[in-house]
């Protein structure tokens, strides 16, 4: 059998006595978009941080392209072609938008160590292309600190694309945006993911976004996977209805 892009098997992690993620398994193929949903505290972000290498799993296996990554650091996982965006945006606040991309590109092209040439002139066009791609070329010379939250999310997306990833992990890519902008950003993301044949895993609370864009959905509750399937299947699932009716009106 061909190895899948991402294969998560029996993943568990607990903090003290609390089990945040419990025996979760799912997988993802190239060019596919998988949404992870669930109420607050369901273990979605923990799951992400495990795949990304920020946290280490207690038990279980995570394979990217067939390679076991449990125990690797984020920077090693990045080398395997994983791009990541964060729930609370993490950009370099003392740099301009363009410089944020340039410094990421410098790392990807193994030029980050160079003490001889100025960064300002390196990878400029490539960085601009990425900014065009995510729709914020006009903000190139703005300091990240002054951007609106939604625009920062776009910067994050561009930064996550700098290592030409095969797998994109997006933690609430549309949080803090108005509904129309959410759909625009996710349209854009879908387009990028499909044209570049990237596999994307994203956490999302907005069910409209999930049902419009995801190929498949994984539902977590209290650390456990309670459902998985196409958006249609998940919508009909009794477990999901039980969980969501109590917590959320499923279309916030």
């Amino acid at each position, binding site marked *: 059998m061909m190895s899948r892009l991402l294969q998560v098997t029996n993943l568990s992690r607990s903090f003290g006595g609390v089990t945040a993620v419990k025996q979760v398994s799912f997988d993802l193929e190239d060019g596919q978009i998988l949404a992870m949903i669930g109420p607050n505290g369901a273990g979605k972000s923990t799951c992400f941080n495990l795949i*990304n290498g*920020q946290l280490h799993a207690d038990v279980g296996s995570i394979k990217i392209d067939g390679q076991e990554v449990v125990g690797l*650091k*984020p*920077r090693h996982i*990045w*080398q395997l072609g994983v791009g*990541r965006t*964060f729930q*609370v*945006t*993490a*950009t*370099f*606040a*003392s*740099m*301009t938008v363009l*410089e944020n991309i*340039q*410094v*990421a590109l*410098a*790392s*990807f092209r193994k*030029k*980050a*160590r*160079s*003490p*001889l*040439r*100025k*960064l*300002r002139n*390196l990878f400029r066009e490539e960085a601009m292309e990425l900014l065009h791609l995510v729709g914020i070329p006009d903000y190139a*010379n*703005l*300091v*990240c*600190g*002054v*951007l609106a939250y939604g625009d*920062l999310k776009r910067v994050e997306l561009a*930064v996550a694309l*700098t*290592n030409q990833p095969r797998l994109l992990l997006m933690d609430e890519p549309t949080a803090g945006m108005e509904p129309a902008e959410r759909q625009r950003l996710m349209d854009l993301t879908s387009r990028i993911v499909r044209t570049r044949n990237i596999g994307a895993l994203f956490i999302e609370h907005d069910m409209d976004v999930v049902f419009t864009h995801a190929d498949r959905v994984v539902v977590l509750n209290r650390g456990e996977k309670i459902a998985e399937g196409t958006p249609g299947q998940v919508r009909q699932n009794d477990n999901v209805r039980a969980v969501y009716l109590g917590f959320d009106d499923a279309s916030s």
Partner: protein
Amino acid sequence: MLGAALVVGVLGVFIEISLLRRLYHVPELFLLMATFGIVLILQDGTRWIFGAEDLLGPRAPGIEGSVNIMGSLMPQYDLVLIIIAPLVLGGIWLIFHRSRWGVLVRAATEDREMVSVLGVNQARLYTGVFFLGSFLAGLGGAIQLPKGGADLLMDMNVIAAAFVIVVVGGMGSIIGAYLAAVLIGELSAFGILIFPQSTLIMMFLVMAVVLVIRPYGFFGKSEARRTGSEDASLALLQPASKKLRLLGLIFLAVIGLLPLFAGSFQLILMTEIAIFALASMGLYFIMGPGGMLSFGHAAFFGGGAYAAALMVHYLQTPMELALVMAPLLIGLLALIIGWFCVRLSGVYLAMLTLAFGQICWSIVFQWGGFTGGDDGILSIWPSKWAADKLVFYYLTMVLSLGGIIALRYLIFTPFGYTLRACRDSALRAGTLGINTFKYQWAAFAVAGGFTGLAGGIYVFSKGSVFPDEMAITRSFEFLLMVLLGGVDAIMGPIVGPAAFIWLHNTISRIDFWQFILGIVFIVLVVAFPQGIAGFFNQRFGRYFSERYYQEG
């Protein structure tokens, strides 16, 4: 004694209300500078009121005698002290865990905003904490009076010890602080028996060992890591615009032509400023783009000076070679020290650099046979061709400005940006394949090397070197110079030392000059919270910018 403690407590409240309260919005480091100013003022104030002589404390009435414990005489007073300390500890613990006020204080340190949302008057809370802290410090000073008397140099010793103990115990842990104090006290006492030379460094050795093994002290919790983005105070570093470059050229021309107009005193002053500017640039590189606070920078500066002096003294190394070797050797030293320090962050990192700085200092100070100890190393003069004051002036300028420009250039290379990326968001840097430790470590070593060069030039300009060049005071002076210039401004490390040395030279001829210097510091902190160069950037920056960066 309680009276003394109360007086000090009230003095603390007075300082807090009149000055510090206005400064809570400025970065913590500047607060540190303001408190340093207060120390200077109080020191001279004390000298003015009580005179410069040491005061001997009276024996405590009623407990003058001694008790025979297992064949050795113990003064009764010492026994009383041994009892008082745990009582104070118990009292504080009760205040913080059982009283409403104490619980509020602990809540406020956890989450300021939430507490203020709950309608608590924070200003009063902080004033209360300040009172308690000052009260305890006063009490400590008062009850040790019958044992040791009082002198004007108590402050520096006590500050260092108090810092060390709090950090070793783990910040935020009162019991940890008590245990650390007992541990360090015992080790110092027994250290004298086993290894008499160890007294000066024992405390710092303990701290170094503890921090290497337990990065947050005995009971400290890891500080929340900055994720970036939210902190808009991180300033943008701009490449020089054409106008600024022109200004720089004019500045260089002035320096080049200065000997035509200035007397030899001014030239010596300029030489000193240039050397200190290079060393400050080294510290700035660590603190600004590197985001690492160092309290032990004098180790690299003094280290460079000693490296050069020892080579000349023992190996008759020519000046040229010594000036090449000093930065390399100190770069190596920084590589070793950095390997331990860079793993930590924030205050813990700063304290570990302080510990290493003190260890270096005490090696030089106490290894008299090799380094000359307190007497220093004398008659280290430049090579013949550079012996002339004027030639040496130009040599210093070329090396110092060259070093400064090189470090400045480095900030704009991919290396410098990657380093800043590690500071802005270690989390993001990690997910971009950047090994943050390696970059910060390398930055530490590079900055150390350039500072070593500054030390090397310094020794040839003075002709001698003494352990003072490595002492805490020197480290603090570097810190002040960088802060005075501004941590977020690349020109800071030139402006800061210039202002500092000029001030120092002008004021130190007046009696009670420390008092005035202290006031000047406080005024500077209040007037220029971003440092002098930072202030000019903010005020006049737009005249020089090429609109390369737009404001939001």
